[in-house]
């Protein structure tokens, strides 16, 4: 689970969009990447993503949950200027990064993502493209 072979959805030079089932598989080797993953976007996931130094991230909103804890990671990344967004858990299957990427519809965005033109209702693919082009 921690070791996972990531799919590469797009690549241009060192920049990539990668797809992961679990955010726990992200590390420093992903510092040039926009990450689309299947995990919830809770606070601990935001911290993992920040520690890895990634360029942008799209996860699952897990129904948002108690005090919006399932998307608390958006705020963590916002504080570091990293664009982040979540897809609705009714649009994509949690734990499945390919589903996030292929089927996901954006349900929440942080300020840094908003500045890139990422909006609620957009497809995850379009949102990932916008992060990729800005990275």
């Amino acid at each position, binding site marked *: *689970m*921690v070791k996972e072979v990531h799919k590469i959805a797009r690549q241009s030079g060192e920049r990539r969009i990668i797809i992961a*089932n*679990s955010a*726990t598989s992200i590390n420093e080797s992903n510092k040039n990447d926009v990450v689309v993953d*299947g*995990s*919830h976007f*809770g*606070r*601990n*996931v935001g*911290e993992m993503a920040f520690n890895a130094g990634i360029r942008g991230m799209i996860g*699952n*909103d*897990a*129904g*948002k*949950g*108690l*005090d919006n*804890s*399932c998307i*608390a*990671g958006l705020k963590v990344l916002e504080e570091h200027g990293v664009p982040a967004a979540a897809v609705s*858990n*009714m*649009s*994509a*299957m*949690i*734990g*499945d990064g390919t*589903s996030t990427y292929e*089927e996901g519809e954006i349900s929440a965005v942080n300020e840094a993502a908003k500045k890139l033109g990422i909006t609620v209702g957009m497809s995850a693919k379009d949102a990932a493209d916008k992060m990729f082009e800005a990275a």
Partner: protein
Amino acid sequence: MEEPLLGEKKVVKQSGEARLIIVDTTSDVREDNDTDVIVTGSHGGKVGGDYLSKLNVKGVISNDAGIGKNNAGIASLKILEEHGIPSATVSSMSSYIGNGTSTYEQGKISTVNEIASKLGIVVGMSAKEAADKMFEALIQETK
């Protein structure tokens, strides 16, 4: 209630080799947890079910992540059931996802698999009580 602090793997109870363990993320569970009941902050999706069944843990309580598309948030329950492992989820509206202590302290059970059901674990029960039931059953088994 405020969100409890995130932390490392915690041992809540121990009896012989059997332990009740709290983790914020399922990815912190390891081979040496094969005598343990696990309470995790992670969602209860397939990826965690595959991982935990391979490690042969003795019980799992995770977060239902709002259940979601195709019940993906609770897909692990069936997988664990097929491996004879009792499992339940707490509602994402009852506890903070990604925070195992919150799952344990605040979680309210939202779904159970057949094996957990046989242990008397029911929807609406506190996660603490459900974890106790899994732990007690484990101790009885290993006696």
